[in-house]
């Protein structure tokens, strides 16, 4: 065996396993290179992973990013109030414009009616009273309506009778709360013999007329002028005179005297309906 053969033999002995191993690695790298270079094969491997990651991300947005987004929005709103108002203005403007247009249309209809049918009536009224025609027209347009009437026992707030145009929340509870508010205000200001007479909220007014044992609460919608107040008071006094003065002392007395003739709630409510249902104020 020559020297060269010996070296070759020694190399075979020493490096046979390594060569097989290196070959396997080279094959594997070849497959990976092919996978990366070919889009379809890469997609096949990577897409499910990305898809899973995206799903997880979407699920975690509210918890992970929500507070950060909210904080950022708040900060941006605080910093850019004017811009935000600018952005909202056209939307609100359209709504307001639509509302005003509707109101003007209704006003126009009313004025047309006034000017046609009642024109001469107004003219006469104007001549005799000295009030301008326009003022009479405007005065006629401001309508107020009685929505609800409650006859309530003073102190306890127990509802004795009611009349209502529309269905509201439990009237017993309204009576109690009105009595609590009335009691609180009258108590808080410590003025003896003075009564809360009016509660206002937006387009509604609650007129409270107190008597000795009872008070009457009248809910009015629309323009509650002095003239309307005067008419409401007349109605309440008439009602009280006609009916309550004669019957209520015996009706709700707690002395247990059964001989006294008691008036039913239904009868009271019939009277309230009769008095207030078609009342013009």
């Amino acid at each position, binding site marked *: 065996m020559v020297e060269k053969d010996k070296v070759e033999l020694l190399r075979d002995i020493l490096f046979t396993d390594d060569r097989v191993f290196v070959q396997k690695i080279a094959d594997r790298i070849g497959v990976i290179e092919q996978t990366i270079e070919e889009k379809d094969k890469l997609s096949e491997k990577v897409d499910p992973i990305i898809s899973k990651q995206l799903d997880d991300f979407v699920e975690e947005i509210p918890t992970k990013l929500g507070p950060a987004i909210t904080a950022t929005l708040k900060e941006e709103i605080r910093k850019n109030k004017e811009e935000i108002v600018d952005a909202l203005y056209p939307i609100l403007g359209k709504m307001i414009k639509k509302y005003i247009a509707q109101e003007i249309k209704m006003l126009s209809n009313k004025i047309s009616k006034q000017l046609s049918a009642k024109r001469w009536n107004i003219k006469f009224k104007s001549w005799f009273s000295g009030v301008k025609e326009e003022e009479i027209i405007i005065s006629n347009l401001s309508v107020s309506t009685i929505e609800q009437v409650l006859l309530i026992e*003073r102190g306890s707030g127990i509802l004795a009778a009611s009349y209502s145009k529309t269905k509201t929340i439990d009237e017993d*509870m309204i009576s109690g709360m009105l009595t609590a508010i009335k009691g609180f205000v009258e108590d808080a200001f410590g003025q003896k013999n003075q009564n809360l007479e009016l509660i206002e909220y937006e387009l509604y007014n609650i007129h409270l007329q107190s008597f000795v044992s009872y008070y009457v609460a009248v809910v009015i919608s629309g323009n509650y002028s002095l003239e309307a107040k005067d008419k409401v008071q007349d109605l309440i006094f008439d009602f009280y005179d006609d009916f309550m003065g004669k019957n209520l002392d015996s009706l709700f007395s707690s002395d247990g005297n059964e001989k006294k003739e008691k008036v039913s709630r239904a009868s009271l409510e019939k009277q309230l309906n009769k008095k207030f249902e078609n009342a013009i104020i």
Partner: protein
Amino acid sequence: MQLSKKIVVLGHFGVGKTSLIRRFVENSFSDNYKVSIGVHITKKVVEFEVEDTMSLILWDLEGTDEIKTIRDAYLLGTHGVVFVFDVTRPSTFQSLNTDLEIIKSKLPTTPLFVVGNKVDLVVVSELETLFKENNIKTNFLTSAKTGDTVNDMFFELAKLIK
């Protein structure tokens, strides 16, 4: 005409007045404590027999450690009173007899029930001993949480004031 009666529920802060009323009216309970401000009014119709009913108008007054500061206006025309204390907090019943005297001076002829609430949190026998030692007399021991004797208490009061 259905009879209506005004019931006032009062007592110190956090004794469970609102919870008792809620249990009675809505048959529900919440652990979330919200302080009552001013007065809250609810209604429950109780039926004694067929066509024999009564509307209880329940005035839930805000809690106060000074019973004498309760506004007289809220007590006017009251038909029945429920004074509530918390059996787990001695501070709410230590001055019970004084509190009751104040209420009776304001409403001398009005039926009054004394109610120990939150009884689900204590051992009743131990409580009875404690009450005996401190000369405390109650009409009912209730639990707004479990509903224990809540309806009975209001029903008994309704019968009493009928």
